[in-house]
């Protein structure tokens, strides 16, 4: 087994690991207990494994764990603080954008990056859809998700 020492932060916490070079970042994050990272397709199609790496949404299923060295990683767990869900998470609840929930943590991270990038700018629904096209949802039909994102951009 080939291993490599890497150091990265996850949700503000510094982690040092001697990681098996064969692992994806998805494998490592789930082993660290961050099970909001879901494996749907495992091949970059569905976005259920989305995390923010240096604030950019990435599919962790096709991202080598060794690439995380020196990076700042955010998952849906870290968006809730002191028992308080984030604004994006609350918007998903309020809009009824969560059904089975499997896709939700990945969507939350894509939306979080989107809202941080476009806050205060004029954004149409097409752009919201386009920037979420790397996340699939089998349940909601997307309409409520678009509404949730829209509501976060308002104030």
């Amino acid at each position, binding site marked *: 087994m*080939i291993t*490599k020492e890497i150091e990265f932060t996850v949700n503000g916490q510094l982690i040092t690991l001697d990681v*098996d*070079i*064969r*692992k*994806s970042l998805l*494998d490592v994050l789930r082993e660290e207990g961050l099970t909001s990272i879901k494996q749907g397709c*495992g*091949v*970059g*199609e569905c*976005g259920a494994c*989305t995390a923010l790496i240096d604030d*950019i*949404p*990435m*599919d962790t299923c*096709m*991202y*080598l764990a*060794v*690439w995380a060295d020196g990076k700042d990683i955010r998952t849906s767990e870290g968006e809730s603080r002191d028992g308080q869900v984030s604004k994006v998470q609350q918007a998903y609840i309020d809009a009824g954008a969560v059904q089975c929930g499997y896709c939700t943590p990945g969507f939350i991270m*894509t939306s979080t990056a989107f809202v941080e990038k476009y806050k205060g700018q004029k954004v149409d629904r097409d752009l919201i859809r*386009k*920037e*979420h*096209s*790397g*996340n699939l949802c089998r349940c909601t039909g997307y309409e409520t998700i678009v509404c949730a994102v829209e509501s976060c951009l308002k104030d």
Partner: protein
Amino acid sequence: MFDIKSYEKADTVKQAIELLSANPDAKLIAGGTDVLIRLREGHEEFSSIIDIHHLEEIKGVEMQDNMDVRIGAGMCFTDVIESEIIDQTIPIVAEASGTVGGPQVRNVATIGGNLCNGAISADSVASLCVLDATLEIEGIDGAREVPVTEFYLGPGKIVLTHTEILKSIYIKAENYMGFGTHYYKYAMRNAMDIATIGCAAAIKVDEGKVETLKLAFTVAAPKPTRATTAEQFSVGLDATSENIEKIAKKALEDLNPRDSWRASKDFRLHIIETLAKRVITAAIIDAGVQL
């Protein structure tokens, strides 16, 4: 877990070449959006990898003193799309890059990897063909430059030898200045789908007449192809809708699309002609000419 048997990280181009030269089975990995998927599918030929993911030497976009543009092969599509230099000089490359996969794919997939995987559907290729881009390559036997139009040998086959790495893509000022351009990807879905046919055009119009037309297609033949018969036919023609129809018909003479489960040959021929019309028209309008 990916079935990776050997892993080396290269910190310079020189080191990557030496590592390739030392291991005849090794493959480079940049963004990994092809390599890791192949590994996931159990393709053993990718089990020895040389990591150029972080290689700074092949990143960046620059405008040179002579106004030529250099794009580092290691640039991910999102960085290509957001580059101001590209937006101001060769926006067709950003346009084409925006049609790749979804946001998460574009955030990591590189333009160099897109060319080097040899896929006939690669979305960046048609735009680079109509810009007559030059590829800067280096290997154990030295450096060379290859026009992008000569880079492909057939489906999945490119001119790179085992130790060669694609460093940069160059676009000469004379090949973008004064041109109107457009790229259109025809796919079954609007996002997250590979092209059924891709079409790019660059056109220069002088006093209402076509001075130069460059027209390229992907998935329309065993490799990305310039429709040279149509290009030559177009020179000197009035830039009118009627003539665009004639040029589009000519384009079929240069192409030979395949039959596949994605689309039949007849359907692809129909799309080629329709796209040629649409893309040439959009490029003419982009050049500032009223039709």
